[in-house]
């Protein structure tokens, strides 16, 4: 049963991903004033979503490390892998955002509140990896690094959702805004949400592979110690 579900998952991912790419690049009408450069929206927004999702996943796994007494090692590497995937998606968000900023606003970097908030995420991930590497031989490593990720997850809404709305931003508020309405045409909205869903499936696929590799590494380590 598990194999069948996994097969269907892979099939959905590998069918939908090319479909979303083709739809975003050819079917959806161009964005007013931005022209074809606006199509980067269907890749930039899902990547930003995954950066935040990885953050929440890492925080959740860290929380579970502290409140449950079983599977600590497993939860620890799951938190670490979520952070590792998170930094990868954050860097991709910054790159796609910078390209779009150059085309729309004239320069790669403008210190816009939302541009800055994604750099905060990246800095937090970098700090976490610094802390993790310092704690390499510390017996309390899983607890200290988990607390760091939990604090980071809890303060994340301040700089991802609150600060960008406190100051003037160049980014349009098309999805989360004060009117509570999505200001996108139907086809654009459909493609964007499809893209977010497919990228989330891709994230699940990558995260699953990373966790399986970590599990194998731990098993191999245990075998070496047994010998």
């Amino acid at each position, binding site marked *: 049963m598990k194999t069948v579900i996994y097969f269907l998952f892979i099939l959905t991912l590998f069918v939908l991903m090319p479909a979303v790419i083709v739809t975003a690049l050819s079917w959806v009408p161009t964005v007013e004033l931005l022209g074809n450069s606006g199509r980067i929206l269907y890749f930039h927004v899902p990547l930003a979503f995954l950066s935040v999702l990885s953050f929440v996943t890492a925080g959740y796994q860290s929380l579970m490390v*502290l409140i449950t007494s079983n599977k600590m090692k497993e939860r620890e590497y799951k938190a670490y892998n979520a952070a590792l995937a998170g930094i990868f998606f954050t860097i991709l968000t910054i790159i796609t955002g910078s390209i779009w900023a150059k085309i729309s606003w004239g320069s790669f970097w403008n210190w816009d509140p939302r541009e*800055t908030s994604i750099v*905060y995420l990246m*800095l*937090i991930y*970098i*700090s*976490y990896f*610094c*802390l993790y590497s*310092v*704690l390499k031989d*510390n*017996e*309390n490593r899983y*607890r*200290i690094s*988990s*607390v*760091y990720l*939990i*604090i*980071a997850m*809890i*303060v994340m809404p*301040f*700089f991802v959702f*609150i*600060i960008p709305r*406190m*100051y003037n931003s160049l980014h349009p508020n098309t999805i989360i805004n004060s009117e509570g309405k999505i200001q996108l045409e139907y086809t654009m909205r459909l493609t964007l949400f499809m893209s977010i869903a497919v990228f989330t499936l891709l994230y699940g696929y990558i995260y699953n592979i990373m966790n399986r590799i970590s599990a194998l590494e731990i098993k191999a380590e245990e075998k070496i110690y047994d010998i």
Partner: protein
Amino acid sequence: MNNRILNNIKKDFVIEFRNKTAISISVAFAVITTLSISLVSGATPLSPMVHSIIFWIILFFSAMSGLAHTFIREEEEKTSLFLSLHCTPEEIYLSKLIFNTALFLSIAVIVTPLYLFFLQVLPVYLPLFCFITLSGAVAIASVATIFGAMVSKAGSGSSLFTIISFPILLPVLWTTITVTAISIEGTAVKQYRDIVFLLAFSGVIVLTSYLSFRFIWKET
């Protein structure tokens, strides 16, 4: 307030007054930086935003050089185990938080007039300037307390403390720098909502730290 918390705060103050490590390092750093900037800039007028940035960078690095010391001292002098036998982790956290906040507020009280005097700055909105300095100092102290504990348990120095604290403190620095510039310039609308933001941020950090401190403090 719990007697053990009060005793612990008293103990920290007595030790601090005896050897004056944290306060002398922080104040010396702040004074040297302020005087150096004053000396270099001379009579050149700096914009309110530049003043605000310099002022908060001085306060931030003063905190980074002094605030982690309260936990690191417990580890260096091997008193953390004794402290754990005497107090619960929550009591230890609260006492250290109160001590760090008081210490950093005293540093801010010393550094702020010095900066205003030597760089000849007179904020137009003085109450807003005072409120933002106080609420910013509380936010920095609340973040520095929990990360000071982490660094002491990691057995690492102040460089790691700055690295892990900086990203979490960036929203605080961003807000305080913007509002301080407004209070010095006096041209924009007074932004008391930013003070609410800083107090909410400090509240969230303190609550999370209070709940998770035992996991850092107690070794497996």
